[in-house]
């Protein structure tokens, strides 16, 4: 049974804007799933409908076999939501925010206290349990939203850009926490603008663009579609005036000591280094020019835009 099965989901807002144009999507139980898309693509509307914050116009949503129209209480019981924007009562202390959320799900107070303590400790918030929300930093608020979403132990956790605006250290610790959670059996759907995050965490991916699913595959398969990869090389000494011609590699001059190399996937970095050494070029360091997923993402979104322009 899929954790989430969506068929022909549509949403048209007042005023006629069509945010979703017939989404079909299935997420398997236990998956770590990335939902990507540019701003305004329909990601938050999609999540809002599943979480009962947005009324759908048409289509069907099932969560672990429960239909959203016929059994919304069962659907809601299965889902934990970490929204994109902070939605707290800023004058409540941290512990009370989590306890209240447990109460809304009908969890007895004694059990709620045990769970709240467990998740606040796991997310390094226990020492702040008596602090009012308005006194927390953005990163701590993001972590609290995760604790709050987990207190009823949902089978499906949906995170809408959970690491937006948090520093690298907190982001890495949140990644580690989410990996452990997924390993424990919780299905996770994640939207993010940090494509490195999706590549690092998720196994399956869907790209949503202009209210439609533009791509749906595993992260590994998607990355396999990249034919070339681009590296930036820092060199010892100056770049030769006449760049050597290397079969399978395209070399571009960036500045006196920096070279950009585009490499076909059927060639190896060993081959590149051997060819450069043969030409007397010594490499000090190298880095990817662009995140691989980001590049694919941009290519796909561009293709859709061109297709839409052509159709018009």
């Amino acid at each position: 049974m899929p954790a989430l099965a969506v068929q022909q989901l549509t949403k048209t807002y007042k005023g006629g804007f069509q945010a979703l144009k017939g989404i079909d999507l299935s997420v398997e139980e236990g998956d770590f799933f990335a939902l990507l898309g540019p701003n305004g693509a329909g990601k938050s509307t999609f999540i809002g409908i599943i979480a009962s914050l947005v009324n759908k116009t048409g289509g069907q949503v099932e969560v672990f076999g429960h239909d959203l129209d016929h059994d919304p209480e069962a659907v809601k019981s299965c889902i934990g939501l970490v929204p994109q924007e902070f939605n707290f009562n800023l004058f409540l202390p941290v512990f009370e925010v989590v306890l209240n959320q447990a109460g809304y799900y009908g969890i007895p107070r004694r059990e709620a206290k045990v769970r709240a303590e467990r998740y606040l400790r796991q997310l390094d918030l226990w020492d702040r349990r008596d602090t009012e929300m308005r006194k927390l930093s953005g990163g701590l608020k993001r972590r609290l939203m995760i604790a709050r979403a987990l207190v009823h132990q949902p089978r499906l956790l949906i995170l809408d850009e959970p690491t937006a605006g948090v520093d690298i250290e907190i982001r890495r610790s949140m990644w580690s926490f989410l990996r452990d959670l997924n390993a424990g059996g919780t299905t996770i759907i994640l939207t993010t603008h940090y494509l490195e995050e999706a590549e690092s965490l998720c196994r399956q991916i869907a790209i949503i663009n202009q209210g439609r699913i533009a791509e749906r595959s595993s992260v590994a398969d998607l990355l396999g579609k990249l034919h070339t990869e681009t590296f930036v090389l820092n060199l010892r000494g100056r770049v030769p005036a006449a760049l050597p011609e290397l079969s399978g590699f395209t070399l571009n001059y960036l500045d006196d000591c920096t070279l950009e190399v585009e490499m076909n996937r059927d060639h190896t970095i060993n081959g590149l280094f051997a060819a450069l050494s043969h030409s007397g070029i010594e490499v000090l360091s190298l880095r990817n020019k662009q995140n691989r997923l980001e590049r694919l993402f941009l290519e796909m979104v561009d293709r859709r835009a061109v297709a839409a322009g052509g159709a018009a």
Partner: protein
Amino acid sequence: MKRLMRSGPRYWITFQTIFTKEILRFTRIWVQTILPSVITTTLYFVIFGRLIGDRIGTMGGFDYLDFIVPGLVLMGVITNSYSNVVSSFYSSKFSRYIEELLISPAPNWVILAGYVAGGVARGLVVGAAVMLVAMLFTDIRIHSFGVMLLVCLLTATLFSLGGFINAIYANSFDDISIIPTFVLTPLTYLGGVFYSIELLPDFWQGVSLANPLLYMVNAFRYGLLGISDIPLGIAFGMTLIFILVLGAFSLILLRRGVGIKT
């Protein structure tokens, strides 16, 4: 019914959570929520009761000060039950923490009951506080405590529902003060708080009968003093009808997600 039996304990916990949250909210800020009504009513007692009231004499067979006590107590109940729900629910919309409830499996009627119970609680607390102040100025003997309590409960329920509907439609903090200022206050003052409608010409007596607050003020006056311009049965009947209509309307709004879902 099966669902209610199965989920009843869960619903009860949800209700308790909302209710407790509301009680804590208005007691934490008691200087803003409870004290103002007590001070205002004390001033009414001093000015209208002692200073002006002594010159008015009696009304309905009672000292003027005694006559206005029921209306002033009920005024506190009405304004506080209304403003508790309207400000609390609108704040939860404005800061978006209403989403905590909307994503939970709490049924709409439990959400509504929790907020209304919070409004009723504040109305009763303020009503009791005003009554204690009244006891300092008068030596009223309560005619029927049961009627008094029932009127307070029904009135607070009705105006909590009114506050809830106001909050659903409100788009700004200005919108939550329009109804209390331009509708509630005039209706309260014209609902027989400070006078008996027998003093009015026939035409205006007829007009006054269209004011729902008249029924509640008079029913409460009966509970406290044993006199009323309106038969008690009609007063209770009218209040119950208003509660049922506003309650049903609130549930329809919640079901459609008016003002809280896109």
